[in-house]
């Protein structure tokens, strides 16, 4: 029942999509029928192009995300724990926050060329801010009394960071990481569309340019499916890590 109610809206949209295209309400050169897209998807999945490009894209997204988690938790923790660092880095973070990271794509091409580095760097930038902010807010939000109680039980200041502040901030940090997962997909596709060498974004762009719309939609479905799967997996991991919450 649960699984059915979750996919029912998707099935309805697919049926609606099929109906409006088959009936001629929407011209098929603007929107190919859902069934045509599925056929194109099966063809792509059994061919030799889709999977290598998927691996390229996912590897990039994972690398950019992973580096952002390491660097972002470091910067966020530095800001939360050292007043001086917060004074220095805080205004930079705030100024950088509202900037759409895709605006930096031309600059990043100048810096890093057209290879993997440029794309991974863009994904890293996109993921960085939510990680920094959630780490900072999470660490700042830990109840002072928990720190006091650890100190009075004999914990050193360093132990308090590791054993109290970090687990106490974990719910917020994980919320930030979930946002970063979504951003990694966003930046992955947009960087590959613009710096078009390979990857799923490149496939979407090149099928679109060549008028192969069913294939283009099929790749969009693949990106959507991957994003959804990554999000669900992350939510499952979070609720495992936070199983102590009622």
């Amino acid at each position, binding site marked *: 029942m649960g699984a059915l109610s979750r996919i029912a809206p998707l099935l309805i949209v697919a049926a609606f999509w099929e109906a409006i295209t088959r009936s001629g309400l929407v011209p098929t050169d603007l929107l190919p029928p859902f069934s045509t897209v599925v056929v194109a998807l099966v063809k792509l999945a059994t061919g030799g192009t889709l999977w290598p490009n998927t691996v390229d894209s996912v590897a990039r997204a994972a690398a950019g995300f992973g580096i952002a988690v390491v660097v972002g938790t470091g910067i966020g923790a530095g800001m939360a724990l050292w007043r001086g660092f917060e004074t220095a880095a805080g205004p930079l973070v705030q100024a950088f926050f509202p900037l759409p990271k895709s605006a930096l794509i031309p600059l990043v091409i100048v810096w890093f060329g057209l290879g993997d580095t440029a794309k991974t760097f863009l994904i890293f930038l996109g993921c960085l801010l939510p990680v920094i902010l959630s780490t900072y807010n999470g660490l700042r939000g830990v*109840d002072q*009394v*928990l720190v*006091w*109680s*650890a*100190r*009075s*039980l*004999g*914990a050193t200041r360093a132990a308090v960071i590791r*054993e*109290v502040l970090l*687990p*106490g901030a*974990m719910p917020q940090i994980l919320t930030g990481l979930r946002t970063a997962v979504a951003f990694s997909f966003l930046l992955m596709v947009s960087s590959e569309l613009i710096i078009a060498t390979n990857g799923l974004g490149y496939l979407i762009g090149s099928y679109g340019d060549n008028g192969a719309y069913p294939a283009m939609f099929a790749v969009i479905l693949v990106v959507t499916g991957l994003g959804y799967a990554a999000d669900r997996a992350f939510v499952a991991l979070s609720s495992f890590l936070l199983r*102590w*919450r*009622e």
Partner: protein
Amino acid sequence: MSDTQTGIAIDRLSHRYVPRSGQPVTALDNVSLQVPRNSFHALLGPSGCGKSTLLFLIGGFLPIQEGQIRTASGPVLAPGPERGVVFQNFALFPWKTVKQNVLYGIGKRGIRGAEADQRAQHFIDLVHLSGFENSFPAQLSGGMQQRAALARTLATDPDILLMDEPFGALDAQTRRIMQEELLAIWRDTRKTVVFVTHDVAEAVYLADTISVMSARPGRICQRIDAGFNRRAETGVFKSPEFIGLVEHVWDLVRSEVDEARQRSH
């Protein structure tokens, strides 16, 4: 009072802070207090009288601005495991089970393995939490969480037990039971206890001595001997002496509240 007899010696302690909006507040003004070793002392007063501030200063959580606090281990400069603390809102680590919480302080004392396990179990049993070792705090009632917090603190064997309205967040029945159990544990362990409360009957029931505090600025205005905690008989609550002393202390607190109100006008 010789040094071996002194549990806590507080000498001319003052503490000021500036709230986010406005004038500096004198939370404590020239407070001196001797708590003999192995005795149970209650800090009683209306909210805002600085009793929790005083307790946090003894705990080493706030910097000492003026005056001095000494224990058998020397002057208080920082938190230390010889001063165990029980907070009003329990302050359990929510990501740790009851047992992991109790093991935390034991581990900090350098005890590990089977010995640590045994010790944790002993204190979990002592506070009647057997069967809830693997529960997370969020799965327990307030009373049970405070038992777990008490076990966690007792398990590190502190000389001094600092309690900040530990039963204030509990319902009346649970509070009464916890008071009785605390007394039983205190009779066995004879810690030096400083117990912050605004509940007059609680102070009279639990303490050897009571400091009645006044607000704005926070001062100790009366020191009262109670000592019902050393009586073995049950039903102390109903004795005329107990009821008389509660009334007497009530009058003192009430006049302090009235005076503070007049001062602030």
